[in-house]
Structures are given as C-alpha cells and as structure tokens.
C-alpha cells in the first residue's frame, strides 16, 4: 500500500462523514418504536438460551444496580443514535440479549478484542460475560476445549442454524493455501473454518481491524497474505467493527441493535455501522478549536503539548479517521489516544499500519512504502493542505467538545 498522494490525502481529509440522520421526524421514530416494541415482545416469549440465567430478575432485584443500569441504557441509546424516548426499549433489549446466540471464533489475532470485551462497561461485567451475552462458543471463555469445544461449536451452529451472530476476531491468512493457520482435529485451515461456520450464521460481525481489513498480519509485506473477512466471505450480511482493538461499546451496541430491531444497523461503504463510524475523529475532537486556531504541538512535551494543542503535526490522523472514540472514549470513558496527547493512528481505517500509524503528518512519513510512493516533507504540502482544510471544516468547529472534556474531567 503506497503512501497516499496529495490528492487522495485531500479527499480523505475532506470526505463527507456518513452519520446516521438523527432528525427524521416523529413519524419515522414512532414507526420504528412500534416495530422494536413488537420485536421485543416476541423475543420475550422465547426462553433465555439453555443455561443462561434470567438476567432481568437480577436487574430488578437491586435498586442501586437498577439505577446504574438505566444510566448505562440511556448512554447506549444515545450511542446508537436513537432518541432518548427509546431508552426503556434499549433497557428491555439489554436484558434480552441472551436470546440472541453469539458464536465467537478466533483466527490470526492477538486476543486484544476478547480482552476488550471483558472491559465492557455496563451494569456488572461478570453478568455481561456469563449471562447477558449468550456466548455459545468463544475459545477464550468457553469451558469445553478440544473435541468437546468442537462439539459445542457443532451443536451451536446446528441448533441455532440461521440465527446466530458470528463474531470473528483475527485475519484470514490466505497464503500457502491457508496453511499458515489451521484449527481443529482435521487441521482445517482458518479459511475453511470461517467459511463453514459462516454458512449458517444470521450475520457476521468482524471485530477488530485484523478481522475487518487484515490488520497487523496484513501490514506490508503481508507475509501470510492475510485478509479481512469481507474479502473472503461472500453472500452473508457482514458488519465491520474495526479499531485496534474494537471498542467494546460498539460490540455490545451491534448486538443490542440486532436484538432491538432484528436487523443489522445502517452501514457505511466499508460495512461499518454508521452509529459508530459515522463520525470523523477530527470533527468531535476536544482539541479541534486549536486545530482551527492553527495551534499545534510541534514536538512531544513542548509548550503546545502542555496546553492541549492540536496533534496534527505530530501525526494525528483524526482528520482521516472515522470512529466514535472522540465521543465515547475507552475504558468507561476514562481516556482516549488524543486525550493522552498521542493522537489518532487511524486504527479503524483499512491499511492503517502502512498509511497512518506513524508520528509524523501525512507525506512527511518516513514509512515503508513497498510499492514506492511519495516521501515528501510536511511543509511541501501538509501545511498547504492544513490551511485549506482548516478553512473548509472550521464552520463546525466543535467548541462544545472541549467543554465536554472539561465536564467529564470533573466527573472523574
């Protein structure tokens, strides 16, 4: 993957975001509300899957937990880009997530997304893991292993044929006939394994940048010819939740959305849910006012850094990156990469290891460009571009985001 030429950088920088239209009128939302209500009532009739506890009981038991839970439900409603009136529905959907079977398989990964999953916020993490999400199969959490694990997987895909959500973590190595990665007693390649399990899934959720776009194994020179799921599996609905690792709120959001509506959320052209990836990092960034004012960190730890200036010149790729990190952040909202003064490395975008993940602005990147490509200095075009974009985007300078940061500091 070559370093982008000036024109493509410019087009990225100024690309339209693909936000969910949140102002569709009362009629639209009333209809959606009725649909969701009907679906939830239907789901209520179904017993929780096999061993799962009825999570609803425990939520209703304890007053304090109940309050926390509702707080979480209303935050999640906002994240899904639904009006606040949907909060009770989302709360209902959350306690019925265990009606939707989830099968989670791991290919060429680092387990970072599974780790992220157990950092989910919400009412109680052990309940999310054990009771709320009906994880029918997950190699890292499942009791059975070896033959019994495989049997568990067989049972799940047989029993829930056409109904389960398949979460895939990790890339698919295609080189050497897929033999860089094999799984199971028969030595099935990751590729064949994925195809087999995908066949009967209701939809596939590729979680993390490896499963979506190939991620680190696919970084140049891509020694194992690793690919993302969407380049391999055809004829199935696929939802991509990139980032390295994916934000657990977005994982839970996708399941919730599916429970709530029975359909997959609106997707952008890279198959990412718009509720999460409709935002450009840059547009909701707390440092945005400094970008617009032309105030930059020039070097790590300089006066600009001490004053929370914009990180563009030290490599922030927020302008090229679509994700909701700048809004929901990480680890229960505690921080995020721009907050911590590093800047965005574009980890939710295809080929970001080769295109974005360096601490210089675009085109000043002394990075590996296996197919050739420009290695210009920033001043040659970066600054010119900055000015143009600065003017172009200044209209929706997000002063409010800066205020938002301060507020959450107080809470913390």
């Amino acid at each position, binding site marked *: 993957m070559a370093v982008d030429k000036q024109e493509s950088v410019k087009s990225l920088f100024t690309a339209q975001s693909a936000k969910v239209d949140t102002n569709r009128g009362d009629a639209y939302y009333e209809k959606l509300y009725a649909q969701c209500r009907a679906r939830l009532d239907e789901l209520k009739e179904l017993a929780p899957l096999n061993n799962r506890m009825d999570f609803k009981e425990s939520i209703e038991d304890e007053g304090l937990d109940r309050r926390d839970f509702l707080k979480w439900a209303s935050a999640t409603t906002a994240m899904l880009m639904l009006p606040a009136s949907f909060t009770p529905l989302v709360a209902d959907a959350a306690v019925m997530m265990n009606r939707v079977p989830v099968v989670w398989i791991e290919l060429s*990964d680092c387990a*970072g997304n599974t780790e992220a999953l*157990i950092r989910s916020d919400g009412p109680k993490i052990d309940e999310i893991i*054990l009771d709320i999400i009906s994880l029918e199969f997950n190699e890292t959490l499942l009791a059975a292993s070896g033959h019994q694990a495989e049997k568990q997987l067989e049972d799940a895909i047989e029993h829930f044929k056409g109904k389960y959500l398949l979460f895939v973590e990790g890339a698919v190595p295609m080189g050497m006939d897929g033999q860089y990665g094999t799984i199971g007693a028969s030595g099935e390649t990751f590729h064949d394994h994925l195809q087999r399990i995908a066949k009967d899934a209701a939809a596939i959720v590729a979680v993390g940048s490896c499963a979506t776009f190939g991620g680190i194994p696919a970084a*140049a020179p891509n020694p*194992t010819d690793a690919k993302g799921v969407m380049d391999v599996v055809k004829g199935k609905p696929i939802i991509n939740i990139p980032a390295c690792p994916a934000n657990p709120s977005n994982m839970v959001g996708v399941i919730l959305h599916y429970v709530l509506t029975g359909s997959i959320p609106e997707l952008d052209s890279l198959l990412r849910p718009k509720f999460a990836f409709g935002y450009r990092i840059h547009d909701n960034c707390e440092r945005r006012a400094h970008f617009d004012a032309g105030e930059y960190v020039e070097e790590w730890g300089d006066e600009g850094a*001490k004053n929370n200036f914009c990180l563009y010149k030290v490599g922030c790729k927020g302008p090229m990156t679509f994700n909701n990190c700048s809004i929901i952040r990480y680890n229960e909202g*505690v921080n995020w990469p721009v907050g*911590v003064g*590093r800047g965005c490395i574009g980890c939710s975008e295809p080929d970001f290891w080769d295109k974005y993940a360096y601490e210089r602005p675009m085109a000043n990147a002394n990075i590996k460009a296996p197919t050739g490509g420009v290695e210009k200095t920033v001043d040659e075009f970066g600054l010119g571009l900055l000015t143009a974009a600065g003017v172009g985007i200044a209209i929706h300078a997000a002063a409010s985001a800066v205020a938002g940061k301060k507020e959450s500091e107080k809470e913390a």
Partner: protein
Amino acid sequence: MAENNATVENNTTVEETKEEVAPVEKKGGKKHIIVDPITRIEGHLRIEAVIDENNTIVDAFSSSTMFRGMETIMKGRDPRDCGLMAMRICGVCTGTHYQRSIEAVEDAFNVTIPKNARIVRNLIQGALYMHDHLVHFYHLHALDFVDVIDATKADPKKTAEEAVKWAGVSGHKPYISAEADFKAVQDRLVKFANEGRLGIFGNGYWGNKNYHLTPEQNLIGVAHYLKALDIQRDLAKMQAIFGGKNPHPQSIVVGGVTCVQDIKNPARIALFKQLLKDGREFIKGAYLPDVYMAGTMYAKEATDSDATYTATKGKGVGGTGGGILNYMSYGDFKLDDTGFYNAEDLFPSGIVMGGDVSKVLEVDSQKITEDVAHAWYEGTGKPEHPYVGTTIPKYTGLDKRDDGYAYLKTEEKYSWIKAPLYNGEKMEVGPLARMVVGYAKGDKRITKYVANFLKRSGLPITVLFSTVGRTAGRAIETELMSDVMMDWVDELAKNVANGDDSTWTEFDFDEVSVDCKGAGMAEAPRGALGHWMVIKDGKVTNYQAIVPSTWNAGPRDEKGQLGAYEAALIGTKVADPEQPLEIIRTIHSFDPCIACAVHVMDTKGKELAVYKVDPTCAF
C-alpha cells in the same frame, strides 16, 4: 528478505480423531500421552509426556505449532513506529512489547527519558502487572486448584468463617465476608449446574482426587473468580488514565511519554490512586488469602522433593513442578534517572543457578543466544545472538502414525519456539525468578515480602521451587507492586507540583539513526523480555525479540537440555492419565503466552484434541 520466500508445509496434517480418548501409545509399560490444546493460555501449545507404569512423568516435550513473521513486518520501517506494531504481538501483556521496543530505540539513540516519563511508564507497567497477575490467577489458573462443582456442597456460613481465617493469615480483612454473599454465588452456581450446562465452567476435571480444597474453600475461590472480573476492569482503567486506552495503550514515544496533560491534572492522579487503592484491597483481602489457602492445601505436592526433575539428576530440591531451577531476571522498574541500564531496579537483575540462593551471577547480555536445533527454523549450525539472529522458517512436520494421531518428531525439529540459552544453559524466567533473584541478592524490599509470605504460610523457602511456588511468587510480587505504586503516584504528583512538567527528551533523529543498534531488555509480567534492533539510515534492518515464553516454553537445545516447561513436568505423579490436571496445573503456573513466543497472532488450533482439557479462557 529470505523470510518472504520461505514456505511452510502444512503443520497440522492430522486425521480427525474418532473418539474422545487419549492417544496413549504404550511401550514397555510406558505411556506416551499428548495434551493438545493446553487451554486457559494465550496462544497454542502442545505438551507430549511419557508416563511410566506408576503414572509418573519421565519425559516431556513442549511445542508450539504456528508461525507468523513479525520480524519481517518490522524490517524497513522507521524505528519510532515499531513500538505500536510490536505491541500487537499480544493483546494480553498489552503495553509491554510496546515499551521494550521503544527502549531498544532509546538505547540505540542513547536517549535518557525525563523523570516524569520514567514514573509514568512504571505506573503503566505496574498497572499491567496487577491486572495481568490477577487475571492469570483467577481466570486462567484458579480452576487447577478450585473444584467449582464441589463448591455447590459448601455451607455458606462456614465459608464466611473460612474466608476470615485465610484473610487473617494474610494479615488483612476478607474482601468478601458476608454469608449472604457466598450464598448468592452458590445459588447462582447451583442454578447453572441444574440447568445442565455449566457455561464457562463446563467439562472440567471436577471430582479429580488431586483437587484438595474443601467445599467451603472452593466456594471462596468461585466467589473471588467472579468478583475478579469486575476488579480487572478497574485495573485496566488505571492503564488507560496515562495510556489512553487498554488494551493497547498509546502514550509511549521514543524519548518519553505524551500524556503531559494527564499528569498535570490532579483529578487524574487522584483517580489513579483511588483505583489502585481499591485494587489493592482485593489483592490483600482475596488474592493473597487464596494463595495462602491453596499453598497450604497443596503443600504436600509443593514440598515433595522426590517428584522433581532434580531428583532424576541425583538430589531432589523443591517440590512438584520445580524444573530446572535456573532463574534469570533482566531487572526492571527503574527507580532513578541515571539511565536505563544504570538505574537501580525495583526487581534487580541477576541469575540464580540450580536453586542455590547463596550465589547470584550478573547478567551479561552478550551471553544470550538462540538455538534452533529442535525448532522449525533454518540455522547456521550454532546458537546466535539476537542482533545477528534470523527467523527463517523450516518446517519439517509431525509424525503421523497409524493410530490416527500425529506425534512430535522429538528427535529432530518439533516446535516453532526457538531455544534461548544463557551462556549455553537453559533458564526459567517470570515473577518467581524475579523474587528468587531479588531474595538471593539480598534486596531489602523483596526479601521482606518473601520472608513475610513464608512466615505467614509456615512453609520452607524450598516451597518456592515448585508449581505452587511459581504461583506464590506471582502473588508476592503483585502485593509488592500494589504497595510500591502508591509511592510512585505520590512521587509523580510531587514532582509535577514542584514545577517539573517535562515528559520528553529531544534528539535529532537524522543524526542518531544513521548506524546504530539497541536493546530493550527488561521484565514483562511473564518474565525477562528483550527486543533487539539494528538501525541503518533511519530504518530497521534487523529485529528480533526473545519473549518470556520463549525461555520457558522452548524445546531442547542441540545438547538435549530440557526447556523449563519440559523439566518442570518431570517427576510429577498423575492421578488419572485421562485427566492431566497436574500437567496443566504446572504449565499454567508459568502463565504461558505462546502467541508471543512464536510471534504469531493467536492460533489456538485444536488439531489433536486428545484430552478433555478443561475450561478454555485464554485471556
């Protein structure tokens, strides 16, 4: 780059096994068993063991069966960008590879980071230690000691009394003490059990006679297991405060750290401290008491010096699972600002040979080599130092036999992990190694914590040289870390309050990156970790990493010296070969991270699912 052209043959041409029984090849009364996969670990690991007529392990082989060319991806890149990529070697010890890679560049460029950056890195890594050790003990290892199903028989009232008792041994109040809380956990467990499927607790070795805890003790274990899921989320938050996020923090750069606004904000520091305090309560009120409890109930194994590898060499030292008893630490957690390789370490560096704590050798990095005699790589015929080492795959396959199983070709190459050597000898690394080296060196702080543990548990020092000792060493270290981090947070706050807000040391990249090499050698939660980098004209020309599990899980070397896992298994008595509980208990005590060891992205293949190995939670 030769790696690009290397071809690897199918490494798992194994027939579908017909039935769920062990492949037990019997030869003159001996049984050759295969345990694959070893679960509740990160990555993919196979153990083959030879068991004699008394069910004692007489030989063992450790193998990893997956490859990914991380080094290949690093070559040709800007050295400043390698840290973020190196971090993706593993999502579990997240942040460690990142920092080591950055330190290698700083070593090459001769850059010393400012005080604030040093403390922040210590806090980020310290938070990882607490998180990683806790998750390891409860979610990856506890079920080797705790019989979950047996907990359904417990009396909640007696359980509460038992909890007070063990917390008392640790000198603390119990984290969970109410009868009602234990009852609630038990009710939940009973409900799981009654509904037929056990969720993540299904298919364990429940009822095996080598489980030694009482029903009440088992219930304590289960209650803490569940609570620890909550606690780990908060511990991860600590890393995110100064790292931006967890997994995969983002604030470390060559020359320092970027989180200047977070260290200048007293609210951030206060939050960090609060989370640390809460985590410490759990560590002292649950984790340590549980380790005292397990240590006491499993003391017989832990002090059985006949059931050891050393016993086969003459005189047994330590107890079940001890192994080679050569312990190495590179040293880590820099306590002053005199430079990476000059500063005093919280965990001192050093080597203890053969469990002899009366003598400590200094680590000379020139004496580290990697041997590929039994690893699936091309070799030059002799062990090589990582600066000149190569990673060129040469896969020779498994031995498929008529019984339908594929066995390791143990006479030749049999693993994707290389065999690292120090001065031609095998080493064990990890928390226990750090505690043993610190103790042997007479480090005041470590000696105090180790002595305290031994005094309170009433166990002899040799108990450390065992499976239980490895687990105890990790717990001792976690407590020490949670205490010392309190001081570090204060030190950071004070330094910033005194007007020092410097977080980065300037350097001229073009000037320093012309022709240099550097090493980031320090400690990961799982042990000694080194990244070696050669840089020319601003780009990486060679990159090698020797990770903790390379030391511990590596195969034999050309002289036939056993790896740490292999040796640790020898002498162990297995109660029931169909249930290799003792094997996985010992292997888990090392906290394997095999994805790291072979630089693969997690493989978890189950090509030869032979034993019903218990719960799979490889975090």
